């Protein structure tokens, strides 16, 4: 595997890690909001929030370092070629579709169970941020496996 392949793989891994960290952070935050202060559930959710935020922050730092490495190697255009751009557009489209689905379900749920809007809003946020990152990473890794 040459250096470019490794960079493509690294980018997909960092984005997947960032998505997982963000989802864990926000889902735990939601769980903490829904549990009573001082309970074991609240403590577990608070730990999850901190760990998720740390993973997300770590992934963002790794992504900054990755960007510097790509600039240094002068391979920005190559690593962002037309297949990569197509994968990115598709990933955003998946994110939009899933977010729309969550928002629609959220509206329906709110009419049945009053006061659940904050849950669907938080889930919509998680989906809107995580789905594009995960699907982009998956498509990139799949393209590499096919190689």
């Amino acid at each position, binding site marked *: 595997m040459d250096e*470019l392949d490794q960079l493509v793989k690294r980018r997909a891994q960092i984005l997947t890690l960032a998505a997982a960290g963000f989802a864990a952070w926000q889902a735990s935050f939601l769980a903490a909001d829904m549990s009573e202060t001082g309970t074991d559930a609240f403590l577990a959710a608070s730990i999850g929030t901190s760990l998720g935020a740390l993973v997300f922050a770590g992934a963002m730092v790794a992504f900054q370092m990755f960007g510097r490495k790509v600039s240094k190697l002068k391979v920005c255009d*190559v690593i962002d070629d037309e*297949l990569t751009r*197509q994968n990115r557009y598709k990933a955003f489209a998946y994110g939009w579709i899933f977010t729309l689905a969550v928002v629609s379900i959220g509206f329906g749920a709110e009419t049945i169970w009053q006061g659940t809007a904050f849950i669907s809003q938080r889930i919509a946020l998680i989906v809107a941020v995580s789905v594009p990152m995960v699907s982009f990473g998956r498509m990139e890794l799949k*393209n590499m496996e096919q190689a």
Partner: protein
Amino acid sequence: MGKCTDKLGNRLRELRARHGFTQATLAEAVGVTRKTINTVENQIFTPSTILALKLAEALEVPVEEAFYLIKP
């Protein structure tokens, strides 16, 4: 339901082998990643006209020799 659109076939693998290119070296020659060359070869990804012309140029053949239409 059958497919309604034309597909872009290609002879990249054969032409690449004839010129002694690997996927990586051909990718480097046209300024894309190896996964792009592979997905074009396997007809997973349809390249832009610009990339198709660059590939044909790198393989020293007219573009219509490297790429052809597959009718549905």
